[in-house]
């Protein structure tokens, strides 16, 4: 094509964008190592089991929000019933281990497969259509799963709950209930691994294909992107993340499951986590997981009202910073960066 011989005096000084692109990826890896490194040290700073307990929930929410972020921030689709996949993961694991005596890891795998099959069955027909049919379908799935958990009492224990879930084992070692610290590391190791997988995925061919179809399905298709196929896969993966979080929940210190955490309320909370932090960013959902879990804990005495808080948060966010907190922070930093040289320039004669 044209203009190979264009004047190009600054080529040596200006770093190549390809190098900058690669450098951003390296910086991201460093951030991941630093963040999870800090999280590994946190337990030494707190002597309180209650805080550890909350941090375990934050880890679970981080996994859930990161998975949902793949769907919302990259594939551009919304799930209004993500708690259902969380619930399938939790109850399938719980039932297979407590009632049928399965090995927890085997049960985890079975729960994961079951969740993926359900997600695929929901996603396959709805994601071929253009528009937000998935949101409707997942809303339905959320309701159905919640009803099944409550009503099929022989299997799930219903409102009374499912008890007798054994501990998770790790290379023959039991992660027992009086050792929250071990479980903390177990959950956060999962969170770290799943974050790395997520970061790799979005910064690659399939991740770019998702972002592309989010922008323009038509343009993505003429470049050979199977848009429907990629959306289905993103949805299944986001459900798989929820399923893993569910299994981890089932084996956490209470080792007891009740229907409450797997209802519409949680689906909305997850949505707020993703939107609050900033969908389509690596750290947005992490920020969201921390914030919403802490709000949830603070509002625990008024548990029935926190959905109102989420609703308000969602509204305000959409109006004030539709890109989420991390993007808003990013543009603030850019603004300051722009200001600093300007100020410095102003000081000089």
């Amino acid at each position, binding site marked *: 094509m044209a203009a190979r011989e264009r004047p190009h005096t600054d080529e040596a000084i200006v770093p190549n964008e*390809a190098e900058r692109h690669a450098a951003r990826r390296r910086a991201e890896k460093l951030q991941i190592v630093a963040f999870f490194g800090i999280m590994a040290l946190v337990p030494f700073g707190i002597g309180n089991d209650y805080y550890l307990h909350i941090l375990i929930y934050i880890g679970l929410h981080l996994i859930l929000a990161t998975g949902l972020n793949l769907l919302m921030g990259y594939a551009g689709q919304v799930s209004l019933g993500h708690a259902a996949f969380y619930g399938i993961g939790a109850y399938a694991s719980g039932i297979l281990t407590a009632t049928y005596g399965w090995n927890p890891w085997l049960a985890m795998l079975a729960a994961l497969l079951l969740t993926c099959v359900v997600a695929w069955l929901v996603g396959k027909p709805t994601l071929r259509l253009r528009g937000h049919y998935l949101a409707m379908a997942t809303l339905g799935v959320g309701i159905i799963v919640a009803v099944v958990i409550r009503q099929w009492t022989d299997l799930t224990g219903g409102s009374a709950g499912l008890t007798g879930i054994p501990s998770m084992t790790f290379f023959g070692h039991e992660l027992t209930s009086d050792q929250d610290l071990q479980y903390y590391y177990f959950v956060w190791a999962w969170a770290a691994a799943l974050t790395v997988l997520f970061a790799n*995925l979005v910064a690659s*061919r*399939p991740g770019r294909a998702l972002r592309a179809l989010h922008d323009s399905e*038509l*343009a993505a*298709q003429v*470049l*050979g992107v199977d848009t429907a196929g990629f959306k289905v896969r993103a949805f299944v993966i986001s459900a798989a993340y929820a399923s893993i979080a569910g299994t981890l929940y089932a084996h956490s210190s209470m080792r007891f499951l009740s229907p409450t955490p797997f209802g519409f309320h949680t689906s909305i909370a997850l949505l707020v986590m993703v939107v609050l932090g900033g969908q*389509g960013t690596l750290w947005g959902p992490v920020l969201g997981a921390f914030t919403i879990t802490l709000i949830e804990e603070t509002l625990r005495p008024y548990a029935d009202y926190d959905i109102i808080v989420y609703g308000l948060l969602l509204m305000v966010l959409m109006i004030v910073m539709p890109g989420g907190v991390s993007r808003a922070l990013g543009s603030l930093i850019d603004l300051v960066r722009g200001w600093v040289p300007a100020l410095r320039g102003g000081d000089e004669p």
Partner: protein
Amino acid sequence: MNEVLFRVNGLSKTFGGLQAVRNVGFEVREGQIKALIGPNGAGKTTIFNLLTGVLAADSGSAEFEGRELIGLPTHRIAALGIGRTFQTSLLFDQMTVLENVMVGHHLRGRATMLTAALRILGAGREENEYRRTAMETLDRAGLADLAGRSAAELPIGQRRMVEVARALAAEPRLLMMDEPAAGLNMRETEQMAETIQQIRDSGVTVLIVEHDMSLVMSISDEILVLDQGQRLAEGPPSEIRNDRRVLSAYLGEEADGC
């Protein structure tokens, strides 16, 4: 004469009561620049949409290297080696120019969600390689300076050039361009004409829809004229220029030059 690369037969499409494309047939030979012209609403973009699977044809066939395209989904048609640019250029506005071109490499990549997430089976190497080749593609197009810019902030002339570079990154055998010079100034139009000829010279066959008559006349090997969804005339520029039916279809249209 070169071999026929693309053969379209009896293509028709009706929107409600409006017959936008009526029984249109034509051939594109390998290595040609073939132009599709006609007044506004003649059905040119609709034909592109039918041929790329964006719209379903009522009837007709389109054989590309002996393979039937009609009925295939858009991404499968792309995979056979057909690229396309749009009348209003469709860039991925949330991405940088470099990333846009990297999406252009999609068809040549192999990384799946699994291998990419685990960085196995060469997924990491592939990523580095595409970053580099995308940069080279931009460099060859004279767009290297734009690589880090957000696609959303580019002026129309650069948007069109980036869209072409992105389409070429997929290494198509046939490139369909819908009004690549629309909105460009004279200098940019000349540059686009040069680019299209270079694309052809590099071995890519070009099917172009364009309103700029001087551009069409200067670069096309063959021109098909459409009017109200029908084939009006077909031939080399020298014939089309003097065709009375074409002149009357364009009466009042061509006065302003583009």
